[in-house]
């Protein structure tokens, strides 16, 4: 821990400057409407990244961010809060922020499964959807507090996931991936034909109420009319922070070590007393729980969900975010989510080709940079220690 106190002032300033740049960049992307200008901003960003890594600026920034983790975490929260303040009355931007935050939560869940335990899950969107539909059903009972709705959404997703456990544990590699793939398709068909859950038309999800305050109403603070999305963005941010902390703790504990060992070599793990079955169950269940948790909140924000929200394509998108960001790197996940969510929204030209672009992106990534945008770092159990 002593390294944190020796952290240089310039490193801290560098981190603050970087956070400022990110805020400005995100603001610019959200404000600019013209497609040409968006393209300009994007090309400018890519150019800036290329040039700054040529001169070693990128590594300086990454180093100063990595040196003081608490500061970086706080800055990330600050950037989000700044964006909320800037766009306090813009429904659309706030909704995109919610989407980024909650998709990140889901991908962090998938990261426990694929990144740590090595279980590939092609039905991420299905578990996201189980959480969403749970919220829809529970929202008919107004007496249930929202936080409980979210947790129940996660628990139901974990329980539904446990149906898949037996086939997944009995198979391995590609075969267990096929099991989850089959489930993703099955889930959508099940929703399509199930009239009690609204069938293909979908179902309404009631908004959150907390102590008689309805999240669905606009708020007026002084002379400012604040969008009703603001509390939802804050709730999403809190969820991401909690899940991020939780996943980070898993990584930096013996649990993370056992999961890594199971992923890398099952035979040698079992020769050192590591219970393969137990850790696969743990990772799969936690991952689904986290996906269900975020799905429940996302459904409440949407207010209306249908099977089309949780298609196989969405599951693929979650996995492509994980690959793009760098499997096992939590910050990479969040950055990749922002890219994958914002790009097609703002860049209408590519909207129709988004699946095509995702797949190209993933292919390019696998060929040229299989570790992702931000590769996973070697584990340290306590930040600032070692080497």
């Amino acid at each position, binding site marked *: 821990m002593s390294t944190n106190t020796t952290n240089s002032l310039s490193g801290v300033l560098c981190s603050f400057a970087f956070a400022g740049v990110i805020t400005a960049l995100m603001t610019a992307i959200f404000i600019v409407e013209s497609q040409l200008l968006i393209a300009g901003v994007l090309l400018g960003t890519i150019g800036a990244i290329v040039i700054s890594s040529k001169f070693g600026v990128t590594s300086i920034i990454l180093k100063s961010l990595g040196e003081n983790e608490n500061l970086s975490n706080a800055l990330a929260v600050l950037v989000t809060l700044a964006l909320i303040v800037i766009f306090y009355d813009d429904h659309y931007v706030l909704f995109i922020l919610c989407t980024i935050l909650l998709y990140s939560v889901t991908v962090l869940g998938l990261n426990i499964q694929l990144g740590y335990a090595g279980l590939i899950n092609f039905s991420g969107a299905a578990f996201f959807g189980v959480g969403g539909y749970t919220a829809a059903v529970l929202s008919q009972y107004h007496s249930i507090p929202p936080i409980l709705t979210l947790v129940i959404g996660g628990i139901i997703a974990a329980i539904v996931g446990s149906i898949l456990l037996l086939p997944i544990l009995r198979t391995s590699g590609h075969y267990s991936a096929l099991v989850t793939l089959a489930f993703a398709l099955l889930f959508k068909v099940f929703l399509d034909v199930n009239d009690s859950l609204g069938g293909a038309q979908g179902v309404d999800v009631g908004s959150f109420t907390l102590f008689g305050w309805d999240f669905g109403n606009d708020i007026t603070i002084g002379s400012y009319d604040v969008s009703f999305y603001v509390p939802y963005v804050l709730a999403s941010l809190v969820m991401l922070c909690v899940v991020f902390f*939780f996943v980070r*703790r*898993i990584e930096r*504990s*013996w*649990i993370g*070590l*056992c999961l*890594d*060992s199971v992923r*890398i*070599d099952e*035979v*040698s*793990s*079992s*020769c*050192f*007393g*590591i*219970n393969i079955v137990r850790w696969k169950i743990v990772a799969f269940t936690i991952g689904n729980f986290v996906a269900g948790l975020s799905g429940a909140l996302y459904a409440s924000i949407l207010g209306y969900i249908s099977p089309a929200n949780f298609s196989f394509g969405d599951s693929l998108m979650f996995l492509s975010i994980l690959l793009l960001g760098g499997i096992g790197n939590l910050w990479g996940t969040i950055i990749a989510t922002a890219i994958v969510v914002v790009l097609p929204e703002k860049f209408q030209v590519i909207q129709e080709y988004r699946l095509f672009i995702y797949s190209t992106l993933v292919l390019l990534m696998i060929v040229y940079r299989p570790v992702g945008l931000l590769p996973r770092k*070697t*584990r*340290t*159990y*306590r930040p600032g220690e*070692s*080497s």
Partner: protein
Amino acid sequence: MSDSLLQCTGLTMHFGGLAALSDMSLHINKGEVLGLVGPNGSGKTTFFNVVSGIYKPTCGTVIFDGKDITSESPQAVYNHGISRTFQLSRLCLELSVFDNIMIGNHKRLSRGFISNIFSRRKFNEEYEDGLKRATHILTALNPELANRMFDVVSELPMIDRRRIEICRALISKPKLLFLDEPSAGMTHEETRQLMDEILNMGSYAKGLSIVLIEHEMNVIKRVTDRCVVFNFGQKLFEGTYSEVIADPAVQEAYLGKEVE
């Protein structure tokens, strides 16, 4: 026998129609270094895999330290106090040296969510303890390596990887260590150095029984108290190194029949 640590009786392992081990009976005494020699495919590694629980034997019994451990899971065998290394290094290459050694220390680590995630007091204690033990064992084997505790294993040369594998196997203070061809992929000089280091590990080597699979006869000659020669899954001969090399049946198995 009172001082026998491991007693295998009639161990047989069939893979379909192939008998990789048939009616193998052997014992290991406490504190002894036993060499397993024999041509490729004679069942030496299969023997390790059967005793360490990776394969379930077709028939036969394994008694370890007075307890019947036949057909127990690899996890249970580890907890009884048997550790091993692998012929093809099975380290987690993308993890640090410390992580790999901690995998061997699994016995002493708590796996609960409360202690790992929420209240970190117990985790921190275990971390300090683990770091101390890992430093101690690496220093005992090779002091230079102890400075590279948080380096990624894939950056290290073969001999260091073998050292880490041995530390991973020994940190849990097992009663019996299986070494599966520690010389594979290394030069004669490196092998000699590694064996010296293992035998000079002080408190770790004291009272430890070792079963060593090795093709390098110089190593066998230097470190083993007794040898068992395998051929076609059966025990061909048992005795000291000098008895083994003098035996005509062993010479025949290795070099072929003399022309009359």
